[in-house]
């Protein structure tokens, strides 16, 4: 076997090989295809017994909705969940990666994961990519030291807060939190407030929409309420069934048999199994 020269991207990181080509194309007026951003309203708040996370379910690509019911609350550990806003591929990749790292860490230490561990893994990763990994996260969970809620920005900075919002609908949601949040909320009050904040984002921000997802995390227990609220049903379904009878018109039928290259003859035994 001779030396096989395969063009493999360097281990990890970004490959900038296409930079020259892209620069040339953009000079010719070709635009980059818009990547799927989650538009998004994501929130988190700390209540009496733990943490509640909330998110909308709309994913947009430019001004088009590409997913009407996507999941933005990602699993990190049995006691830790993370909401993601920004580029969908980035939030998905970074949360999956850190979730795996946390599992390995659990095996290594023999203990339940701590929220600050997830926080540190995430911020170190995001900082090292200098903001190019466009993931804005709301991380929440309950561990041995108590309930925790953090926000993480694409460049790698973090905040520790009693209530937090991120995404294009963050202002609409924060308006609700700033009006109605108080310490020591009960579970039902907390879920109600989170639902209101996400709904504010859904109806007032065009980048957010569809349904409300909720995740309630308490000591030793979690409740993932997928589509807890569905306030946007389709408003009109035609009573008449639409038919799609028009097919591509056949203008001409011409059959050209291919010339046989190999003559096939049936010989003796079939191949052994």
């Amino acid at each position, binding site marked *: 076997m001779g030396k096989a020269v395969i063009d493999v991207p360097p281990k990890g990181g970004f490959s900038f090989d296409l930079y020259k080509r892209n620069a040339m194309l953009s000079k010719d007026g070709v635009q980059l295809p818009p990547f799927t951003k989650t*538009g998004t309203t994501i929130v988190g708040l700390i209540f009496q017994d733990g943490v509640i996370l909330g998110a909308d379910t*709309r994913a*947009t690509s430019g*001004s*088009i*909705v590409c997913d*009407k019911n996507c999941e933005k609350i990602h699993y990190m550990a049995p006691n830790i969940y993370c909401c993601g806003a920004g580029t969908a591929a980035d939030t998905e990749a970074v949360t999956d990666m850190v979730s795996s790292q946390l599992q390995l860490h659990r095996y290594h230490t023999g203990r339940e994961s701590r929220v600050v561990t997830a926080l540190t893994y995430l911020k170190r990763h995001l900082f090292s990519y200098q903001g190019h990994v466009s993931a804005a996260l709301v991380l929440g969970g309950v561990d041995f030291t108590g309930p925790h809620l953090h926000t993480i920005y694409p460049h790698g900075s973090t905040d520790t807060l009693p209530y937090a919002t991120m995404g*294009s609908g963050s202002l609409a949601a924060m308006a609700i939190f700033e009006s109605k949040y108080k310490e020591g909320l009960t579970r039902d009050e907390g879920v109600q407030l989170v639902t209101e904040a996400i709904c504010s984002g*859904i*109806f*007032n*921000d*065009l*980048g*957010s*929409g*569809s349904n409300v997802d909720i995740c309630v995390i308490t000591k030793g227990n979690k409740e993932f309420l997928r589509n807890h609220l569905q*306030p*946007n049903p*389709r*408003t*009109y*379904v*035609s*009573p*008449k069934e*639409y038919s*799609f009878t*028009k097919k*591509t*018109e056949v*203008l001409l039928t011409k059959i050209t048999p291919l010339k046989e290259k190999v003559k096939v003859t049936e010989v003796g035994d079939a191949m052994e199994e």
Partner: protein
Amino acid sequence: MTKQHANWSPYDNNGGSVVAIAGADYCVVAADTRMSTGYSILTRGYSKICKLADKSFMASSGFQADVKALQKHLSAKHLIYQHQHNKQMSCPAMAQLLSNTLYYKRFFPYYAFNVLGGLDNEGKGCVFTYDAVGSYERVGYSAQGSGSTLIMPFLDNQLKSPSPLLLPAVDAVTPLSEGEAIDLVKTVFASATERDIYTGDRLEIVVLNADGTRYEYMELRKD
């Protein structure tokens, strides 16, 4: 030394979709009522449809400030016409006027994407579709605005002749009844609302026929 470009634009896009369908003896003009800017909603109840004459309704998507100015200009021109000719402008005449008005500002265009719907002098439905600088064509149906790319292919599938290669060419009006056309418009807007963030809130439908003009409204998704 590359040319310095302005970091301020005189235009904004307020979004929304407009549709018009012409029938044998009716015309349907429809538009959503959402007005937005960027990711925010300015209002959920703004009408994009303007009555230019008894039998001419214009629906416009794009920059609503330019649309408002355009509507005012056309209404004024129509008033003068009525004084001079002692009659209302016909829809095809209004179509030509709109085209001329748009081309007049060829080098600082009205950021307006228009469809003009109405009844011609014979009482048949007519729809004219425009680009921003006045190129226009009489058609059987049309969609403009942010949801047009979602709506037009479906209308083509339901209303157009199977293939432009097959002759004879089909007439400019659709064979649908008025009720079927309204049902189609409602379906098409409900669908566009699902996938276009700028379309939604409420649908305004104007129906013109021999008996006069009728307005209908339907709720759309508000998210």
